[in-house]
């Protein structure tokens, strides 16, 4: 690995995979070093143009990581084309950051992980923390030389779950990271995202409700390992050896929790269900529980009709 882990602070050294999260000071000290590429990934498509970390390239989730037609991500060729154009090599250390406490950055990191990019890390606290600390930003677009990123087949099994995988998983831990109102079914839309419509409200049977922001500290970064363990191991009683699936509405905020479980707490098998509630809440004959109770595992006969 080109760049040593960020162990500048005990907070970072304590995580199960200490290399996956880096601090703003760690990044500031290494900006411009060869082999390090900084990527900004935001909800707002123009935010990068307003100002970004010097040298950072933009990767937009909506317009670049998604397939333009099918509800899926780009394939191996599309990803290779995108990263080549951005000037990212397979052996580069990639540090991703973004707005909204890294929702979209964590989502982008998850997609990089589906393609097995060997070294991809998240900037703790994201864009807001960098700016709040008065660190340099620029509107200059870096002129990176195009690379030849290899075509890698996307791994859709290790870190990703589809609807049928979730149905087979029922009985094992699920974490619903949406708001309590969405979880109970009182609301079928996130108050700020009504265009992501669904027909039915509620949650997947037996899912725990832990809104994503519970993993976030006051400075917008992640909580310490001990604090995260108090929630996911203490309150929920999960063990790192258990298989866990996270979901939200479209899979972006649940990527934030996926990251915490997978790398900060070292859970061995965590998958993000990117279909999430916008698929489940619209699907025919999948089991749904309404109200604040988690509900029970449905009988096998209750599973969705096969297609």
């Amino acid at each position, binding site marked *: 690995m080109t760049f040593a882990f960020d162990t500048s602070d005990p907070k970072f050294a304590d995580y199960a995979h200490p290399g996956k999260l880096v601090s703003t000071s760690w990044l500031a000290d290494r900006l411009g070093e060869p082999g390090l590429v900084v990527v900004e990934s935001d*909800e*707002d*498509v*123009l*935010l990068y*143009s*307003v100002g970004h970390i010097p040298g950072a390239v933009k990767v937009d989730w*909506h*317009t670049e990581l998604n397939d*333009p037609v099918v509800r899926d991500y780009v394939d191996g060729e599309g990803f290779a084309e995108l990263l080549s154009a951005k000037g990212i090599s397979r052996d580069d250390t990639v540090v991703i950051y973004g*707005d909204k406490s890294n929702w979209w950055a964590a989502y982008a990191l998850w997609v990089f992980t589906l393609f097995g990019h060997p070294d991809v890390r998240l900037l703790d606290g994201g864009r*807001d923390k960098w700016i709040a600390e008065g660190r340099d930003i620029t509107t200059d677009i870096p002129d990176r030389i195009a690379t030849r990123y290899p075509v890698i087949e996307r791994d859709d099994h290790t870190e990703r779950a589809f609807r049928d995988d979730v149905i087979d998983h029922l009985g094992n831990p699920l974490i619903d990271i949406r708001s309590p109102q969405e979880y109970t079914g009182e609301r079928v839309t996130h*108050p*700020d*995202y*009504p*265009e*992501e419509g669904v027909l039915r409200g509620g949650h997947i049977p037996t899912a725990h409700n832990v809104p994503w922001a519970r993993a976030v500290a006051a400075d917008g970064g992640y909580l310490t390992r001990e604090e995260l363990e108090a929630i996911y191991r203490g309150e929920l009683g999960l063990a790192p050896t258990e298989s866990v699936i996270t979901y939200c509405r479209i899979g972006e905020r649940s990527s934030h929790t996926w990251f915490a479980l997978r790398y900060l707490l070292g859970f061995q098998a965590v998958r993000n269900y990117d279909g999430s509630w916008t698929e489940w809440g619209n699907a025919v004959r999948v089991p749904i529980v309404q109200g604040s109770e988690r509900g029970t595992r449905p009988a096998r006969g209750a599973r969705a009709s096969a297609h």
Partner: protein
Amino acid sequence: MTDNALPAALAEISEDFLDLDENSRLELLLDFSRELPELPARYSDHPEELERVAECQSPVFIRVELDEAGLVQLFATAPQEAPTTRGFASILVQGLSGLSVESALAVPSDYSQRLGLARAVSPLRLAGMTGMIRRAQRQIRLLAGHE
């Protein structure tokens, strides 16, 4: 005005966008975001007078007035960290202000589809602008006594 005719300012903005390639369209939207005027004190001091546009992913608030001549004036505010939303709000402030009630109500709520941004911005992000138009038009109808 035919069904498809847009008021001059909005038609011009639409043409300006469509004349550009996709990357330059984003630049133009960014220019609009910088042009969003500050709220007058009567609203910046009284944010409760503004209506939240829930369709937008970022907090944007709008308020319509009819001036002495009965023409529409739109006021809007959105955070600096949400330039896309600011850009859409700014287009509407420039495009709706000064219109008659009838012309403003005739603006199609899918005006955002006429800016050529679906690929560069994504349809999901464009939905917020539709919400802004619908809410502005509802306020206009109330002010004009149509409801």
